[in-house]
């Protein structure tokens, strides 16, 4: 025996190996100072001469940072000098110096997982004991306060109820990323407040996200904070627009995003909550609130949330590829978007007439006489896309043809033309204008399999260098 050592063992009655080694614990208790923490109740192990602690609250196990039961920890004084997991007779004998320990037992049996590592329990323990990972200020509620109502009263909500961001929920959310909760992503406008992964996680909890959505939310925040996206101006504008989130790539499918039936609508948790989480970060961290710096005349319902996934098809390049990434990479593309304008064509079976219908719809974005001001997204439904696929038209060919069809004579655009005061100065009447700037039109496939309807999503009137350009970021785990 090693003189002066004392031993701590963590057990769980539910673990067959812990049951198996009960006689060895009794032997050890007779020979030395032994303390046992049992994770699932007071009636195991039954030992004479050892202190057995009912550790069903798991505080002792947490303090010992055990991963497996049984775990044997050896101390000299207050100093831990060794530990072994599971039952490995030679290791137990070596650690205890007790040469005949467990003679009747098999040489080796693996242990079981410690309850402290149970995914349904670990966040609660981390929240209770504090791992030092969470830095956000803690708000303590009075006993009769309703957490959801407190979130309203403190201005944390976009108008809909939020999930109260308890430390447990935030720790669970952070399990969705390997990135450090303290990592700063940038400064959120309008108040230019540095935002950490932890703050993103808090707002993702409130939005209703699952942990596996968090990397997508983080990428959306990174895109929003990229200078070309111009989030400050987009927030402050009197115009309708807000950030639209398009997710392209394998992770969109893995986390269950909707690219199909009702892709732009309600009902899918990932679509709904990822877009909402981004808006809550702008609101809560950046201080961007309607009536404050957000001066929208009307706004649009997409400012609650506007997020969908691409319905990728090998016939066309994916949005990830169009934006300079590989198809296998999952990306988030942000666009300064207004609402959805439907475009119906149930007769076209060839690319040209369908392009002409699309062009006629795109012509009126913002105003029929407004050119090179807004960008636009065209969300092409599968039935419309099939017309192009059958004829072998690439996405790039369709885009190019739309730009050609959207070359407009200045005479149609000047002030007074068509009886409308709005328009370009008369001196520009002799020129031709593109409706959209060169990179201002983006096509993406989405939607249900039935319906020859596509969606035009017009953008903020300030595009490109003077305003916002679409920004794409890769989703990182």
């Amino acid at each position, binding site marked *: 025996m090693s003189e002066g050592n004392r031993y701590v063992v963590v057990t769980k009655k539910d673990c067959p190996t812990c049951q198996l080694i009960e006689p060895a614990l009794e032997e050890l208790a007779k020979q030395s100072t032994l303390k046992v923490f049992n994770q699932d109740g007071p009636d195991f192990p039954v030992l004479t001469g050892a202190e057995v602690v009912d550790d069903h609250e798991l505080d002792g196990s947490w303090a010992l940072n055990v991963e497996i039961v049984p775990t044997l920890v050896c101390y000299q004084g207050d100093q831990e000098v060794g530990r072994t997991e599971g039952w490995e007779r030679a290791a137990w004998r070596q650690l205890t110096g007790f040469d005949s320990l467990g003679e009747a037992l098999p040489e080796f049996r693996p242990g079981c997982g410690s309850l402290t590592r149970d995914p349904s329990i670990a966040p609660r323990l981390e929240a209770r004991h504090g791992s030092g990972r969470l830095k*956000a200020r803690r*708000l303590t*509620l009075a006993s009769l306060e309703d*957490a959801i109502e407190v979130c309203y009263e403190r201005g*944390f909500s976009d108008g809909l109820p939020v999930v109260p961001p308890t430390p447990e929920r935030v720790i669970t959310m952070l399990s969705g990323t390997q990135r450090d909760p303290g990592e700063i992503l940038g400064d959120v406008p309008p*108040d230019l407040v540095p935002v950490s992964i932890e703050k993103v996680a*808090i707002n993702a909890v409130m939005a209703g996200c699952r942990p596996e959505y968090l990397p997508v939310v983080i990428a959306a925040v990174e895109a929003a904070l990229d200078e070309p996206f*111009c989030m400050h101006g*987009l927030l402050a504008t009197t115009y309708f627009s807000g950030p639209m989130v398009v997710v392209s790539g394998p992770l969109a499918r893995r986390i269950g995003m909707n690219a199909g039936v009702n892709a732009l609508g309600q009902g899918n948790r990932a679509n709904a909550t990822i877009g909402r989480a981004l808006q809550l970060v702008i609101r809560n961290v950046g*201080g961007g609130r309607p009536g404050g710096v957000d001066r929208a005349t009307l706004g649009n319902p997409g400012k609650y949330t506007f997020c969908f996934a691409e319905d990728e098809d090998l016939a066309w390049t994916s949005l990830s590829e169009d934006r300079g990434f590989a198809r296998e990479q999952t990306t988030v593309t942000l666009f300064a978007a207004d609402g959805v304008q439907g475009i119906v064509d149930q007769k076209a079976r060839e690319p040209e007439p369908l392009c002409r219908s699309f062009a006629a719809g795109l012509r009126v974005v913002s105003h029929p006489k407004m050119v090179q001001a807004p960008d636009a997204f065209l969300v092409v439904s599968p039935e419309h896309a099939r017309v192009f696929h059958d004829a072998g038209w690439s996405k790039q060919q369709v885009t190019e043809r739309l730009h050609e069809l959207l070359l407009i004579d200045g005479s149609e655009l000047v002030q007074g033309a068509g009886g409308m005061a709005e328009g370009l100065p008369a001196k520009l009447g002799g020129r031709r204008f593109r409706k959209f700037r060169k990179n201002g039109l983006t096509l993406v496939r989405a939607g249900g399999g039935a319906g020859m309807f596509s969606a035009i999503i017009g953008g903020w009137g300030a595009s490109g260098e003077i305003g916002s350009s679409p920004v794409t970021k890769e989703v990182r785990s």
Partner: protein
Amino acid sequence: MSESVLLDPGSERDPAEREPHGLPVDLAGKTVGLLDISKPRGDVFLDEIARLLEAEGAAVARFKKPTFTRPAPTGLRQEIAEQCDLVLEGLAD
């Protein structure tokens, strides 16, 4: 799950409160900066303001942001602070 403790989703900032400067008694001899944010026809409005200010005896210095969609660049803000006693900014269309 207990909801008695929540984590603050916000900035945790206490904004510094600053007392605004008092209004000047008169404008004579003062330099007033006029900041055009690059909205259409902002210049028309500010031309008229400049005329009225000069009639009051103020000197007028004109400035322009590169685009209305982004905050004024730091250099421009410093230039205005150096040259002017007062500043007027046109914010709307």
